[in-house]
């Protein structure tokens, strides 16, 4: 059957099978975006509520780190960052505010591009704003290893790498009764393995599925979850993204990651500190730590957000329930990180959502 027809028939089945109110959380921003973009959101019955989760790296990168990047930018250095990180605001400024004043900011797609930047500018210090989850961590780890091997003294990393399970534990512990199903991020699972998310069903009795990002992947995930939840049987877990995700994940990527990083407590924007939720450079690679190299101590204050981004990423409210949504907070003038990132849930709702369609 043609893919689109298959998706339509799956959604028909969901519409028929689901009668009770279900809250399903899609953990990852890419899923939030894909659900809106494919129009699946507009086809779901009103009793299925999709909640956005904390899986957008831009949204959870702490203000202190952006402030540190802005501080480092005042020196005669080159700063490299992933595209959507440059617009996120620290306590007062974003990196893109600096773009107009300076020419030393590079947007890169691969962490390995920083090695070239460092090689080609031997008289300049190059700093990479290394943010992300288990998805970007292996690539960043590889860049650190290569820099170490090549003795690239002019490269360093400003890291904000977060881990998925600890934040999910903290959400599910509180939200056990409210969240009925979880769509787990396919790309994190591709690295860490499907087994990485099994605890959702095992420990919390919540049905969960690892899904890819095509409309068919997401629709299949939703059908699996609605059927399992409706059946009332023991919570189930499935890997529905077998084309990319193995039970044990990508061993090479995981190995490199753990060779370079240690697990430490992490500060999440809008959420606060979560135990053992971040990756920091191991002692062996500490000479690549930009904070140490430039002697900067990022402040650890409570994030000063006027919007309700934290409630959005914790699944407490829908983006349009924030009082600033669409008024004081738009993609052009974002007040919070969920509107800044193209993967942020507020940005997806603003771009695609309109009442009544």
């Amino acid at each position, binding site marked *: 059957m043609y893919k*689109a027809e298959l998706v339509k028939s799956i959604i028909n089945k969901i519409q028929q099978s689901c009668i009770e109110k279900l809250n399903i959380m899609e953990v990852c921003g890419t899923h939030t975006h894909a659900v809106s973009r*494919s129009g699946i959101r507009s086809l779901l019955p009103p009793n299925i509520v999709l909640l956005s989760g904390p899986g957008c790296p*831009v949204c959870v990168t702490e203000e202190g780190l952006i402030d540190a990047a802005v501080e480092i930018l005042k020196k005669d250095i080159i700063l490299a960052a992933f595209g959507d990180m440059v617009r996120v605001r620290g306590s007062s400024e974003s990196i893109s505010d600096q773009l107009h004043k300076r020419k030393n900011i590079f947007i890169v797609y691969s962490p390995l591009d920083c090695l070239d930047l460092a090689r080609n500018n031997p008289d300049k210090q190059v700093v990479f704003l290394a943010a992300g989850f288990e998805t970007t961590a292996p690539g960043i780890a590889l860049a650190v290893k290569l820099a170490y091997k090549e003795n690239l003294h002019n490269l360093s990393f400003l890291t904000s790498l977060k881990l998925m399970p600890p934040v999910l534990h903290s959400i599910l512990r509180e939200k056990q009764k409210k969240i009925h199903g979880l769509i787990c991020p396919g790309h994190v699972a591709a690295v860490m393995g499907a087994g990485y998310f099994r605890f959702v069903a095992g420990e919390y009795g919540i049905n969960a599925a690892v899904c890819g990002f095509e409309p068919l992947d997401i629709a299949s995930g939703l059908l699996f979850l609605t059927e399992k939840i409706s059946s009332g049987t023991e919570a189930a877990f499935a890997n529905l993204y077998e084309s990319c995700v193995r039970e044990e994940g990508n061993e090479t990527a995981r190995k490199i990651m753990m060779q370079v990083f240690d697990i430490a407590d992490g500060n999440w924007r809008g959420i606060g500190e979560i135990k053992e939720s971040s990756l920091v450079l191991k002692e062996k690679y500490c000479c690549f730590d930009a904070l140490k190299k430039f002697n900067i101590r990022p402040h650890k204050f409570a994030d000063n957000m006027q919007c309700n981004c934290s409630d959005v990423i914790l699944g407490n409210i829908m983006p349009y329930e924030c009082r600033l949504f669409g008024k004081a907070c738009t993609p052009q003038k974002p007040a919070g990180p969920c509107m800044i*990132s193209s993967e942020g849930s507020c940005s997806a709702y603003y771009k695609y959502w309109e009442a009544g369609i």
Partner: protein
Amino acid sequence: MEEKIILSHGDGGKFTSTLINELFYKYYGNEILLKGGDSAVFSVKTRRRLAFSTDSFVIKPLFFQGGDIGKLAVCGTINDLAVSGAKPLYLSAGFIIEEGFSIGDLEVIVRSMGDICRETGTMIITGDTKVVEKGDADGLFINTAGVGVIENRYMPKKIKNGDRIIITGSIAEHGTAITLERYKIKAAGSFGSDCGSVYNIISSLAPFYKGIKLMRDPTRGGVAAALNEISALAGKGIRIYENLIPIRKEVIAVCNILGLDPLYLASEGRAILAVDPSMSHEILKCIRSCENGKDASIIGSFCDSCSNLVYLETEVGGRRLLNTLEAPMLPRIC
């Protein structure tokens, strides 16, 4: 000639005239330009109205797969005139060049401008060159302006529900080519920009001008921006069908990797037409008979249930808004 542009190339003296004679006259050469006056003097023997357009080009990188800043600067103004219903006739070309710019690169750019003029029957009849100190400009900026004679006066206000929307070819190829160059992404496959003139298509539609109510070129802001402009001018909503939009698989793949939406990426050799439904199939057939129009498609229509907004019906039968872009698109993290 020197190998690099020096400040003297812009001071009006000997170096300037060498540049004009050996580069601009050589590749643009036409009777009006070669008179070398302070103004280009020409007559337009028509009682029809004239169209006049200008655009500046500051693109990075200057060279990309499928074109360069010169080709883009000439095609951009030709297309602005063409989609206004005019036959493009005469152009001007103004250069702001950074000191130290390679004359070899400049020659390639000037040559491609001359080539496009010959292909499209247009002429660059006046120009200007300024050289600024190193660091005061980023390589090269070009401004072009153009004059054309109106052949088709549209009536956007006569657009009615049911009128069709046609696009002359596959979308987002220029934006994708530039993105790949800018982020130095090595991708296998052919990723050339669609940069080119659309006047050949529009002039071939002369027998159907009555049925064409409005045209736009989906450049900055892509198809989404152009459709929103059309909707605002017509005062009507539009419904577009995702599965009817022509787009190459390679373009979809690159956009998926980078997290970019192809509906917001520029095309530089496409036009969007609002046409009467009774003539839409003949118009489509005519466009498809042109080499650069063979992927043309009817992608949607004006509708009364869309409350003056642009909607996209997705492949899976869902519906979503197609707004104009509010913030620049940047490649995502993961």
